[in-house]
């Protein structure tokens, strides 16, 4: 049975468009009405893929091209001659598959963000030698000294007890080369940082805020927790996976804008870093119990730091994803939806764990 398809013929020499009718017969031969064209067998024709309802083209070996909007007739001719519709198009026109795909997609994203990315990143981190951590830390202290920190104003006499306490707390661990440095906090104020190579930085402001040597000790332990659990390395790897995942999802939609992408990935990143803070808190809690220190010291200290951060009026942006440092004090936004944007668990939630009696 003949199939007649109306469309447009382009000769491949000029950009003129000629309205024509193609006649396709059941044995796979095509000719064009009223045009000196001869007959062409289906095996010699290059069909364009069917994508939605875009015009379909047949490219002929003589350089000419036939274009039409009648996708169904072309598919009918193809199937008459034993050719199948592409599997992609069969999926793409299927409404219920779209719904199923959507559900699958949501599940895949949820599972990979919640479990896949953390697990894979931990596996990778475990396989990387500790030299990599040292590499990440390379030059970080110098960079921080140039941009943020000032020289410490504490005398040797003031530094010595802190240093002694630090060495005592660090003594149990022989794998990491812990090292304490003192700095003026500049606009960052009372704070402590852990670099992945084991260097821990405390600011003068933090030291002057502490009212008990175990308060400072608990913060130092928390920082050591970041180093021991290799949080910087794991964070770098997780963020890269996250970037890769969003690239896969959004693909070529550069026009959708980066802002649209930025918010969900900020949310996920802050969830990840809250997880790390909790892990470092756990580490500090366990060591404090080992050393018979009272965990409420960390709670008291965190509360005081928080009040002072508010006092400074310096709401430090916590979402800047600086990969190689772990900053300590949380911004004073403790309530409302802003909590989800914070890199730290809320202070109440954090301190509650330290105030809870030993179970």
């Amino acid at each position, binding site marked *: 049975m003949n199939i007649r398809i109306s469309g*447009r013929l*382009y*000769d*491949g*020499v*000029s*950009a*003129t*468009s000629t309205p024509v009718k193609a006649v396709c017969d059941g044995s796979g031969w095509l000719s064009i009405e009223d045009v000196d064209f001869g007959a062409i067998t289906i095996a010699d024709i290059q069909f*364009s*893929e069917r*994508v*939605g*309802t*875009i015009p379909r*083209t047949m490219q002929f070996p003589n350089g000419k091209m036939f274009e039409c909007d009648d996708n169904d007739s072309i598919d009918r001719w193809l199937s008459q001659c034993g050719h199948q519709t592409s599997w*992609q198009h069969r*999926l*793409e026109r*299927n*409404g219920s598959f*779209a719904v199923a*795909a*959507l559900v*699958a*997609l949501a599940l*895949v994203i949820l599972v990979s963000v919640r479990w896949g990315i953390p697990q894979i990143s931990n596996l990778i981190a475990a396989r990387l030698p500790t030299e*990599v951590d040292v590499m*990440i830390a*390379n*030059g*970080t202290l110098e*960079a921080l000294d*140039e*941009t943020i920190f*000032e020289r410490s104003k504490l005398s040797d006499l003031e530094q010595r007890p802190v240093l002694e306490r630090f060495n005592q707390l660090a003594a149990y661990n022989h794998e990491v080369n812990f090292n304490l440095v003192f700095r003026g906090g500049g606009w960052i104020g009372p704070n402590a940082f852990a670099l992945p190579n084991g260097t821990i930085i405390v600011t003068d402001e933090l030291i002057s805020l502490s009212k008990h040597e175990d308060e400072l000790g608990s913060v130092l332990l928390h920082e050591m927790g970041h180093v021991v659990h290799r949080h910087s390395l794991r964070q*770098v790897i997780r963020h890269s996976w996250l970037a890769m*995942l969003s690239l*896969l*999802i*959004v*693909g*070529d*939609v*550069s*026009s*959708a804008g980066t802002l*649209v992408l930025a*918010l969900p990935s900020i949310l996920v990143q802050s969830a990840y870093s809250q997880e790390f803070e909790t892990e470092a808190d756990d580490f500090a809690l366990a060591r404090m119990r080992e050393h018979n220190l009272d965990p409420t010291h960390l709670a008291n200290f965190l509360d005081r730091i928080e*009040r*002072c951060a*508010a*006092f400074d*009026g310096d709401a430090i942006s916590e979402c800047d994803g600086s*990969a190689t440092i772990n900053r300590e004090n949380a911004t*004073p*936004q*403790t*309530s409302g939806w*802003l909590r989800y944007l914070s890199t730290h668990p809320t202070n109440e939630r954090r301190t509650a764990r330290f105030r809870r009696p030993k179970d």
Partner: protein
Amino acid sequence: MNSNGNLPFPVWAGFQFDGSASEYFKIWVVNVLLTIATLGVYSAWAKVRSESYFYGKTSVNGSSFRYTADPIKILKGRTLSVLVFALFWILFNFYPGLIVWTLGAALLLFPFVVVASTAFRLQNTMYRNIRFRFDARTIDGYKAMLIPLALIFGLTAFIYGAFEASEFAMKIEAERGGEFRREDMIFTILLLSELPLIPYLVFVLRRFVINHMRYGSAAEYFVARAMDFYKIYIKFFVFSFGVVIVMGMVLGFVMGALGLTVPNELDSDQSAAIAALSGPIIAAVLVFYAVGFYLLGYLNSRLMNKTYNSTQIGPLQLHSTLRGRDLGNLYLTNTIAVLVSLGLLIPWIKIRMAKYKASRTEFLAKDMADISAIEQSDTTAIGEELGDIFDLDIGL
């Protein structure tokens, strides 16, 4: 809709885009799912199907465009660009000391990426059975961008050198007790001195790309001047600056009227003051974003209009009448739609944008029949995919 007497030719044909969001949505979902399921391998096929849809639904004078890229070539290019990307990732994360050199190397790759990706895209664009092509070689790209690149590198080296040699910075730093830092100063100076190069870079890039585009035997010509681009950017900066000042004044006035001050005492109800303060600040940030979309809409519409209206393709003249407030509306509502729908409306916003742009673009001419086809060879997909992963949208 703009066929008034001021135009050099009568309107020959307007662009039309008649894609539908529901149809594209199904294509998009399949693309995303298969891309993730194959860990990115299907993305090459996804790209071809998505581009084919948008090209195929865009038509001028009764004929639509065709995207004819080979997914395998795109896959090869993507593999290479993933490797290059990984290399840069390692350099950025593990060798932060080399960051200046890394950025310099990336900048040096730029002309190659532009040439290769433009060539690939154009060679795979067909209209009425005639291919577009790009007749520049990589070396032409470097020649065209020699002056802007030399200016950027030279200026950076000069400022760095002069800064280090003079004791000016040290003096200020010492005098002000570390309040001004040398690094901040040099960064600010670099930014301020290289910002004025942006309009020139945009201009050079567009002139280079358009002057080397061919449709069959028809060459394309770009007739804008660098000055035109400077005018657009200067207006954009003046507007932005004005908006920032006005917004700052309004915010200050509102806060003053509400009797709010930045807390400077450690007192018992300071958290209440902060809570009260966060409302206006969040509102101000949101308004800033919204106004930013309109500023961006202004900039992009002017840039695109200037580019299109300065482009002649053989006997044809492109004509574009995008409006800043329309683009601003689209940017704003698109962003809200995508956020609220958790990304489900991404297909819809892409269709919407394509519709608007097509509705505002047209050809002015008399006749197109004398454009004849020219044979050409294929190039690899390497550059195109580099441009893709680094998101170098050259806006043509």
